[in-house]
């Protein structure tokens, strides 16, 4: 369970988050959508504790993320564009993260197999393509079987097959009771996967409900059109 209460964040003159209160529940896939610069990534980064809100708080299983770094034991994060120490190989990276977490090993095998990463594991990261790095980032976020998964554009750069496989995997994780929070701009994908859609606009929650509810409210056939209709409505 992730709870955000009245989150506010400004970067200079830009308001990224303007009073967001949400509870993200386990066993569901929750997607954050919105136009560029709507505050999606900032919201996710606040949850992970990379960005500190100006006011408001985030609790993970009841603990305040800004005060207690131990909360992150239950958390896996896939950033929008993953960067790694360039000289290391994937295997060395796994070892480094295990070292930091103080565990002997994680379970990277399932996703390495899923993505067919095996032969890329011993090459230095700098030689890997963008898509392979993205896969690596997903493996790193999931190899310790976290209760909460926070993923910023997780399918960006993935080939269609890997993207499909990842979606099926996410559905299995949901069935295992994981809390999954995604940010995405590919609305078709959101519609396919999500139990709940949060539409952010100018740092506020503009819509919060099931994808079906959004289409019903706006009278549109697809979620993509429903979101577009909401954005146009806002503009007027």
């Amino acid at each position, binding site marked *: 369970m992730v709870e955000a209460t009245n989150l506010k964040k400004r970067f200079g003159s830009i308001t990224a988050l303007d009073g967001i209160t949400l509870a993200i529940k386990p066993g569901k896939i929750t997607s954050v959508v919105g136009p560029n610069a709507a505050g999606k990534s900032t919201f996710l980064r606040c949850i992970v504790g990379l960005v500190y809100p100006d006011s408001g708080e985030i609790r993970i299983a009841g603990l305040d993320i800004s005060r207690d770094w131990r909360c992150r034991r239950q958390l896996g994060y896939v*950033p929008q564009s993953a960067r790694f120490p360039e000289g290391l190989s994937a295997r060395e990276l796994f070892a480094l993260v295990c070292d930091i977490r103080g565990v002997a090993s994680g379970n990277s095998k399932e996703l390495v197999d899923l993505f067919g990463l095996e032969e890329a594991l011993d090459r230095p990261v700098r030689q890997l393509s963008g898509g392979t790095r993205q896969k690596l980032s997903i493996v790193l976020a999931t190899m310790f079987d976290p209760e909460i998964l926070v993923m910023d554009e997780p399918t960006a750069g993935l080939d269609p097959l890997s993207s499909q496989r990842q979606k099926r995997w996410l559905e299995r994780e949901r069935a295992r009771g994981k809390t999954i929070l995604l940010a995405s701009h590919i609305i078709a994908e959101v519609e396919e996967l999500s139990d709940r859609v949060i539409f952010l606009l100018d740092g506020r929650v503009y819509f919060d409900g099931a994808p079906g509810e959004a289409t019903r409210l706006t009278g549109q056939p697809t979620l993509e059109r429903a979101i577009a209709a909401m954005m146009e409505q806002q503009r007027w």
Partner: protein
Amino acid sequence: MRQMIALARQSARELMRSWWTACYGFFFMLLASALFAFGEEPAQAVVSVLDLVLLVVPFVSIVMGVLSFYTSREFAELLLAQPVARATVFFGQYLGSSVSLAAAFALGLGAPFAWYGWNAREQSGTLAVLLLGGIFLTFIFVAFAYAIAVRTENRLKALGAAIFLWLFLALVYDGLLLGVIMAFSSYPLEKPLLGLIALNPLDVARILILLRLDVAALMGYTGAVFKQFFGSSLGLGVASVCLTAWVVLPLAVGAKAYARRDF
């Protein structure tokens, strides 16, 4: 602690693999070898090495410190999303950077000393103090580098600020100090001067080493005052405390900024 060591190892590994770090160590090895091979007396060699240590160690430390901070800044997301305190990441990376640079310096300089100057027993004390001074300067200037880089988003700006600070402490500060001495030449200045010197870690390190070399006589009356002060075990203690403070202070400033910033 275990987490900090893991992070320090990672950051040290990056620097150790860097060609520049090897060059840096090799530079001191060549320098000291050349001075021993061509110089007549090891003591003179030591003084020449001292000047270069005081100039090169702070410069390389502050520049490499800034560069290695930005290199690891790029994957800070990966580390900070792990269950680890920010301070642990900050200090771990700092330790990795400074220990590897200090090791390159100490190995580079120590090797020729061991080769040429080991039989002269009294030289080993001098070498020790030279190494100590250089290692202190490494830790101090990498700390400066981190304190600057944490607060600056732009790598070039941070490099500029770092080089400015180095220039100020290595060259400008002593000029200003001379100005003060000239302007107030009719007053007893020894005590305020001790205070002013404590404000520049480079000066503290220089005096510490020079006094050990026993060339304080060259520094005239002021030198005598310093010798009286720094030459005693009290002075040595004060100088070490002073240098330690110069490691802790910028590091504390940097860690505080690191704990508060957004990634």
